[in-house]
C-alpha cells in the first residue's frame, strides 16, 4: 500500500519511536524518500525531539523550597496536627521534639555541662565566684563547645525531619481510594476549588478523625512519601536550615 502525506504525518511519532510494523516502516520510508515535504518534516521533528530530550530540567528557583515550607507550615500549623502516626508515643513527646523545645533542652544541657566542667575543674570545690560567667566561659573548653555544636546540628537535622514528618502526618488517611483531587473531566467546573484554590478543603472540616483507628492508613501514606523522599537527589536540610 502506498502511503500519502497525511498518513505519514499521522504515523510520524510511531516511526520516530520505532513502533511501526515492518511493512508500515517500508511504506513510510518509501513515501519519505520520494516526498521532499515529508522528508523535511521528518528531519525537523526528529531534530526537535533530540533537542528536547537533551534539555536539562530548569533549576528550581532558590527561594521556592523555603517558600513552600513556610506556606505549608502556616497552613498545617506544625506540631498541632503532626505526629498522629506515632500514636504509641507518650502524649507529651511531640511537644518535646518540637525544634524550639529540643533546641532549648540542648542549650540547657550544654550550659549545664559547661558549668559543671568549670566547677569541677576549680581546685577547692565550688564557690559562687566560680559561677561568674567569665570564669565559666574561660573554663568551658573546646570539647564542650564541639559537643554543643554537634548537638545543635543534630537538633537542626531533627528539625528538618520534624517539619517533613509533621506535614506528612497531616493528610486525611481515612479518605477512600480515589483519583487525584479535582480530578473531574475537563468540562466539569469545580466552583469552590476554583475560586478558593488554597482555601481549606471542606471535606477536612466535616470529617472527624479517630485518633488511632486510621493508624495503618496514615502509615501507608507516610511510607509512600518517605519512599519518595528516599529518592531525593539533594538533602533538603541545606535549604531548610536557613529558615528562621
Amino acid at each position, binding site marked *: 500500500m502506498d502511503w500519502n502525506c497525511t498518513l505519514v*504525518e*499521522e504515523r*510520524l*511519532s*510511531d516511526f520516530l519511536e520505532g513502533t511501526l510494523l515492518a511493512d508500515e516502516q517500508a511504506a513510510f520510508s518509501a513515501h519519505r524518500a520520494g516526498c521532499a515535504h515529508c522528508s523535511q*518534516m521528518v528531519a*525537523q*521533528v*526528529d*531534530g*526537535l*525531539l*533530540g*533537542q*528536547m*530530550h537533551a*534539555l*536539562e*530540567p*530548569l533549576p*528550581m*528557583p532558590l527561594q*521556592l*523550597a523555603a*517558600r*513552600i515550607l513556610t*506556606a*505549608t507550615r502556616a*497552613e498545617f500549623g506544625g506540631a498541632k496536627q503532626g505526629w498522629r502516626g506515632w500514636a504509641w508515643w507518650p502524649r507529651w513527646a511531640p511537644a518535646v521534639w518540637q525544634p524550639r523545645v529540643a533546641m532549648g533542652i540542648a542549650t540547657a544541657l550544654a550550659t549545664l555541662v559547661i558549668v559543671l566542667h568549670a566547677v569541677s575543674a576549680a581546685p577547692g570545690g565550688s564557690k559562687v565566684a566560680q559561677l561568674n560567667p567569665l570564669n565559666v566561659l574561660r573554663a568551658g573548653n573546646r570539647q564542650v563547645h564541639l559537643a554543643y555544636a554537634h548537638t545543635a546540628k543534630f537538633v537542626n537535622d531533627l528539625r528538618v525531619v520534624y517539619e517533613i514528618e509533621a*506535614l506528612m502526618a*497531616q*493528610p*486525611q*488517611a481515612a*479518605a*477512600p*481510594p480515589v*483519583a*487525584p*483531587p*479535582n480530578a473531574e*473531566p*475537563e468540562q466539569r467546573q469545580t466552583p469552590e*476549588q*476554583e475560586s478558593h*484554590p*488554597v482555601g481549606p*478543603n471542606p471535606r*477536612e472540616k466535616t470529617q472527624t478523625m479517630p485518633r488511632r483507628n486510621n493508624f495503618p*492508613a*496514615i502509615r501507608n*501514606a507516610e511510607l*509512600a*512519601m518517605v519512599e*519518595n523522599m528516599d529518592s*531525593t*537527589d*539533594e538533602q*533538603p536540610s541545606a*535549604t531548610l536550615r536557613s529558615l528562621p
Partner: protein
Amino acid sequence: MRRHTRRVYNLCYRFTGNSTVAEDLTQEVLLRVYRTIGSYQSQYGAFATWLTSVTRNLLVDHHRRTRHDRMTDSIDDVLPVVEDKPSQVRAPDRQAEAAELSAQLQRGLARLSPELREAVILRDLQGLDYREIQTVLRVPEGTVKSRINRGRIELAGILKQMGVRPA
C-alpha cells in the same frame, strides 16, 4: 521531595511560560498534595504520576481562570512573555546554547494550543510514557498519541518559522 518539586516547577513553567506564575502554582500543588496525600493510593499509579495529575489539574484551573486576561490582552498570544535574553547572540558556549534553545522552545510552546502543549511537555520534557500521560490527561490512548504527534509537528513548524535550526 525536592526532585519532585523541581519536576512540578518545570511542568508549570513550561506550560505557563512565566516563572512567577510557575512558582505560585508549584506552591499551590504542594499544599494540595499535603492536604490530600491520604487520597493517594499506590494502585492509582506511581507517586510521580499522581503528582503530575495534581499539577495538571491546577494548570487547567489556572488556564481557565486566566482565559479572560489572555483574551483582553491578546498581545500575549503574539508575543509570549519570555524572561530570557534576546535570541540573536550566538554564544560559543554550550551552556549558553542550551539556554538559548530552552528559551526558543518556550516561545514555541506558548504558541501551541494548550491540549497539544501539555501533551508534548509531558512526553518530551517530563519523559512520561503514553500510559502515564493517559492517566494524567484522562483521555483515550489514541487521543494521547495523536495530540503528541500533532504537537511535535506543529512545534517543529513553529520553530522553523522562528528560524531555529534543527539539531
